[in-house]
């Protein structure tokens, strides 16, 4: 059932960063091996993040669920991350199944596997991990009741592309759902004698699980198609409401998280201060699906943060939310936390702070004289297009901010833009260049000539990708040639002396778009692409567009049907059976308003 350390050691010779696979971090909460052996009724669950350890480890969703599950005496949760390619090759060569970190239990010996599908480009890794764990990738091929395989996380608001592989999905906040879920699994496991005695099938258990808030069981829904692969209807005509935690304060933050032994991205104590966002930027999926806005009480939070810093030994804390500037007690929180005495000085980061001249003081307080990391996201170059996407930032705002920044000694700034936005015209592309030039002019006026050479403006360009549950869910994505023309135009016209330009590949955005807006046919495409070797699609070096296009072709699906096509408003959408709390009429109205601008 599990792999001994001696056996693991044999697998690790010559493997890059073996620390990824050895566990024994601080903050481990899983029940130990002896306890599990003495309690056969315990529900064994594994939380899986389909990317490599360093990328998956900072994910707060896994940390939250890990704490909740392990607090319960009848459940145990372990973790597993995608093995890097060298270790995957070793596992396959030595015919060893993928195992969890804590007790090194093989994946197929668990009762429950929960994948965090944080974004679409992780889908192939999910299939790969199932396969490495000795589990059939298709739900219908898994004859045993356990392990039950489920996915949650941001991308699963449209569960259709993964529905072939999952027994069920959890949509929305997982805190309460996970407990009800494991209770039902536990009861069933006991009744059926650890799933060995077939007193009832998987279907019965899934029926029970399907009653829980936020759970979508694909087997109980049938999708009927028109001849053109658009959806005719989804039966039964009921909606699965996303699970929602009304008051975040009822759940303490994770004060004793697992602290990694090896260097990971965002290696810091991370605290969610607010869930949801009221800004309503029309392209932003997170903003719509995580509504309503719920704040944590700063007073309670401060104590919890201090405990957390003491427990972990971190000297950096990060306050996360979709728009930290909208958190009403931000200044109070920051001032109180900066008083915390740790052995050096505590660094505070606010990854999603929208800078304006009002909270500039705050930014300086946080940065404590370090002149790094000023990021602005105007998203569009012109005011007209910013109004269309409802990005509430004006040119004056931005330039005022830049003025303060430059005059206080900053010489590096980062600007984020999107191209291919709905209703974008050539003038809007020009406007990006004009705006960047204005920023440079501003800098030239303020920064003394001698130091001007140090000015660096990092411009990051992303291709727009329409996502479910946003007003732009119906909008077409620009085709690749158009996106490339737009980017090349910017690239040619931009003053290269001070600007460092980078962009994400439009090919990747195209696949992301198809997977985001996909229906159940996409399951076949994902499986085909995975069989051809697609994995780590989010890693620019490993993403293989040609392979994906071949998968679409072989499965007989036209990718443009999902990407460059404008979806008619009366068409049934693949995600119509999910209710995230925002009405379709409202989204359509918003889309209409954008169109009129």
């Amino acid at each position, binding site marked *: 059932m599990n792999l001994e*350390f001696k056996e693991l050691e044999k697998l*690790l*010779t010559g493997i890059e960063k*073996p*620390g990824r*696979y*050895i*566990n*024994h971090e*601080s903050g481990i909460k899983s029940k130990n091996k002896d306890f599990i052996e003495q309690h056969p009724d315990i529900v064994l669950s594994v939380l899986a993040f389909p990317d490599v350890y360093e990328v998956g480890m900072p994910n707060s969703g896994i940390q939250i669920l890990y704490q909740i599950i392990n607090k319960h005496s009848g459940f145990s949760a372990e973790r597993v991350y995608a093995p890097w390619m060298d270790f995957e090759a070793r596992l396959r060569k030595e015919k060893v199944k993928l195992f969890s970190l804590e007790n090194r239990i093989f994946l197929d010996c668990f009762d429950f596997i929960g994948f965090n599908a944080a974004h679409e480009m992780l889908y192939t890794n999910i299939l790969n991990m199932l396969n490495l764990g000795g589990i059939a990738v298709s739900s219908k091929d898994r004859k045993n009741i356990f392990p039950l395989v489920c996915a949650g996380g941001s991308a699963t608001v449209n569960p259709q592309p993964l529905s072939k592989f999952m027994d069920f999905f959890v949509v929305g906040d997982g805190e309460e759902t996970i407990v009800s879920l494991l209770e039902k699994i536990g009861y069933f496991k006991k009744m059926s004698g650890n799933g060995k005695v077939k007193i009832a099938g998987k279907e019965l258990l899934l029926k029970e699980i399907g009653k829980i808030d936020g759970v979508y069981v694909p087997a109980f829904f049938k999708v009927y198609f028109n001849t053109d692969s658009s959806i005719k209807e989804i039966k039964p005509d009921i909606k699965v409401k996303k699970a929602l935690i009304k008051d975040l304060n009822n759940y303490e933050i994770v004060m004793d998280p697992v*602290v990694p*032994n*090896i*260097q990971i991205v965002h290696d810091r104590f991370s605290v969610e201060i607010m869930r949801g966002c009221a800004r309503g930027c029309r392209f932003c999926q997170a903003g719509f699906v995580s509504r309503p806005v719920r704040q944590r009480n700063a007073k309670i939070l401060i104590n919890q943060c201090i405990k957390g810093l*003491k*427990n*972990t*030994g*971190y*000297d950096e804390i990060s306050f996360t939310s979709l728009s930290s500037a909208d958190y009403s007690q931000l200044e109070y929180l920051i001032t109180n936390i900066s008083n915390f005495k*740790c*052995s*050096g*000085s505590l660094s505070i980061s606010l990854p999603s702070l929208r800078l304006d001249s009002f909270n500039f003081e705050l930014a300086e307080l946080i940065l404590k004289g370090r002149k790094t990391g000023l990021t602005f996201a105007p998203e569009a170059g012109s005011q007209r297009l910013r109004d269309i996407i409802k990005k509430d930032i004006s040119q004056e705002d931005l330039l005022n901010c830049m003025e303060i920044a430059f005059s206080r000694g900053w010489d590096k700034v980062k600007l984020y833009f999107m191209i291919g936005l709905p209703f974008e015209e050539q003038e809007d592309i020009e406007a990006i260049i004009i705006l960047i030039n204005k920023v440079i002019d501003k800098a030239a006026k303020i920064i003394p000539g001698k130091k001007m050479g140090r000015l660096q403006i990092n411009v990051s360009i992303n291709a727009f990708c329409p996502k479910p549950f946003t007003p732009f869910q119906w909008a077409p994505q620009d085709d690749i040639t158009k996106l490339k023309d737009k980017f090349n135009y910017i690239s040619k016209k931009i003053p290269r002396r001070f600007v460092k330009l980078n962009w994400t590949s439009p090919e990747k955005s195209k696949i992301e778009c198809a997977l985001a807006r996909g229906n159940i046919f996409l399951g076949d495409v994902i499986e085909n692409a995975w069989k051809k070797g697609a994995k780590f699609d989010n890693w620019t070096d490993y993403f293989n567009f040609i392979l994906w296009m071949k998968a679409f072709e072989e499965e007989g699906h036209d990718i443009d049907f999902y990407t460059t096509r404008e979806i008619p408003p009366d068409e049934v959408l693949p995600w119509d059976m999910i209710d995230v709390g925002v009405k379709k009429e409202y989204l359509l109205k918003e889309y209409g308003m954008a169109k009129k601008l």
Partner: protein
Amino acid sequence: MITENIIRFKFHKRAEYKYLSHLDIIRLMTRALARSNTIVKYDKGFNPKPEISFSNPTPLGVESLAEYCDLILEDDTSANDFTGKINIVLPEQMKIISAKKVPYKVPSLMADIDLVLYIFKISTAGSKFYGNSISVNENAVKLKERIECENGFSKSIFKIDQECTNKNILFLKIFGYAKILKEVNNFIFKFNNFLSFFSEILKEYDFVLDEVIKQEMYILQNSFLENPLERIKDY
């Protein structure tokens, strides 16, 4: 006599933790200090850094019974209390073995340490001389000579001993030079070459490398060997 509270301590890095890099170990130790509420002194640089320094790094995959660290504490905690406090928050794979107060100025660990003693546990299981202690010994002598002939040997290895406790297990005690000076020098102990270098050679002699342990580190004092803690003499 100095007034600062300098502590030198020795700790091990075992079992799973042998797969953590030197930088990982430094980070873990720093966090353990913070968790135990130990306040380390910071220097007065433009970007203040904690006054903490470690001994020479151990290659990945090698267990170490002798890692050393020097640090300056803000308060006057004794070496014993310090050890107790830190060991509570450290995992069993990484514990402080002993600590001493440094009452006078000494060179830094990295500058001071001359030799590293590695124990190679080599097994003959599966080899053609399994169970034949005479052949094992003969081959071990050949192996020793072979390593001694290796290019760069004199710059890498100070001394090499062998010990055969039973007929199937052979211990190779290698005193390597700790300082990695230039690219050309110290070829064998250049970090990434370490395990692959020895595994390759051992294969030629039909031996299997079971494990490598970093046993101790030494300072050469008038042809005597002292470990960094022994170097600190009590008054």
